[in-house]
């Protein structure tokens, strides 16, 4: 039998941890709980989790600081942030500071389980996750995380800000089925009337820029009736 993944759940609201823990346990995960930042850091080294779920808004040390300290200490455990303010700046920051994913409160607990599975599948033990890389490369495409610029075969791409946000999310979540709703949430941060072409037009914009063929995609694949998937293999590269 495969070893059960260990999850460290960090939130200062005990009502949240107490109700989320059984859900995660039922999903076949081993759960440890921390109620504040210092405790989270301590348990991150003692418990040795495979993934940390981290609330951003906590008294004393907030989730962002916990994440920063983990990464500074060379701890590359994947992190899913629970965002609260939910504004676009905070979401962008979450990915920039090396979180693997984020979820806006209040969320569907089953969605959290799905995200945990996806992040664990993507994780490369001991190695920095894609989300912490300064530069991501896939075939002819390279993306600079800090300056938010993208190049195709050395030529800089002109993209709208929303398409750039989308591209960054796709690149940091390769080989994962991303529903339209999820991508809208990435771009907008809130639910949007589904069935609209708001994501489709952004994806079309990206495909045009990447010279990608929707029928035989080398970057973005359409998953009929469900959403999209980034199919290229993404590597990390230190910015030079």
């Amino acid at each position, binding site marked *: 039998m495969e070893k059960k993944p260990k999850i460290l759940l960090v939130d200062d*609201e005990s009502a949240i941890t107490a109700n989320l823990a059984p859900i995660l346990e039922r999903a076949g995960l081993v759960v440890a709980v921390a109620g504040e930042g210092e405790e989270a850091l301590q348990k991150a080294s003692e418990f040795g989790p495979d993934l940390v779920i981290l609330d951003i808004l906590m008294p004393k040390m907030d989730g962002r600081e916990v994440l920063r300290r983990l990464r500074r200490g060379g701890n590359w455990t994947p992190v899913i942030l629970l965002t609260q303010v939910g504004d676009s700046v905070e979401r962008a920051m979450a990915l920039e500071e090396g979180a693997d994913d984020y979820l806006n409160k209040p969320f569907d607990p089953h969605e959290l389980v799905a995200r945990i599975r996806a992040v664990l599948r993507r994780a490369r033990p001991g190695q920095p996750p894609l989300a912490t890389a300064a530069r991501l490369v896939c075939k002819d495409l390279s993306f600079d995380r800090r300056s938010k610029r993208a190049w195709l075969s050395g030529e800089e791409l002109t993209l709208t800000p929303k398409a750039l946000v989308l591209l960054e999310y796709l690149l940091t979540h390769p080989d994962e089925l991303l529903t339209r709703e999820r991508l809208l949430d990435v771009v907008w941060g809130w639910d949007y009337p589904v069935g609209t072409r708001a994501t489709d037009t952004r994806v079309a914009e990206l495909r045009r820029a990447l010279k990608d063929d929707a029928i035989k995609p080398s970057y973005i694949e359409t998953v009929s009736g469900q959403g999209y998937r980034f199919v290229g293999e993404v590597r990390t590269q230190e910015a030079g």
Partner: protein
Amino acid sequence: MRKIRPIIVPILIIVLVLLTAILLWSRVLPDLLITIRMDLGNALVILDVFFAFFWLVLALVQSRSRQDAIEGVIYEAADVKRRFLRRLDHELKNPLTAIRAGLANLAETHLEEMQRQALSSVEAQTLRLSRLSSDLRKLAELEARPLERSAVNVNEMLQEAYALAQDQPNAAYRDLKLTVPQAPWPLPTIQGDRDLLFLAVHNLLDNAIKFTQPGGTIEMRGFEDGSSLVIEVADTGQGIPEDELVHVGEELYRARGARGIPGNGLGLALVHSIINLHGGKVSVRSREGKGTVVTLKLPAIS
């Protein structure tokens, strides 16, 4: 602007006083001395004109600053309201997260039929509160982020909103129409954020369908009016009483007749916010028992 003005006012006064003093000293004073000798009356006229001019400038400056003060108060009030809504949203999020997780746990246990029913009703109400939280966030987000403008094909946008509305289960048995001109030319393009404009139109259609009984008519129209592009969503629904018309764009306001109809009173507030960001105007005309028409007026590019 608002911050600079209070500094400008005293500076302006000092400059004016200095100028007057210099003028008096160099020009008017010698003149004055001569004229006093020659004609005291004339000198008084010159002085009068001077003071009149001085007071006029002073009065103008004062009225400007008073107007600014009023605008400032209005702005401040809107800001307080926005902050309040944002805090309310924050306070909703944590309990909602815990409740949703708790309900998911409860759903896994063995429940009697009665308990199962109660659970599903609580689940539905929790989702409703989650939607409220999400809508509050939309409003706050709109204030915080710059518009991403590009040329928007309005005709196509209206067609899409229309198609989406027709797919709604509630749209059945209601006559949904879309009228856009083809002659002498199609609708002009406008500069704006297509996603947001789409959301505004979608919200209006959604409202129209909600407040119109089966058998009623809903018309969406797009047309040009001078340099403006006008989008109208009209319905033969229940209408809004006259005394409530002024409030319908306010956050969380729900008209008396809206109680019992799903919604949270943020839809139209969001429309207002989006259209204002685009430099446009929203107006609502309604007759109780007859219907409602919401008009969006947006600047078009020729």
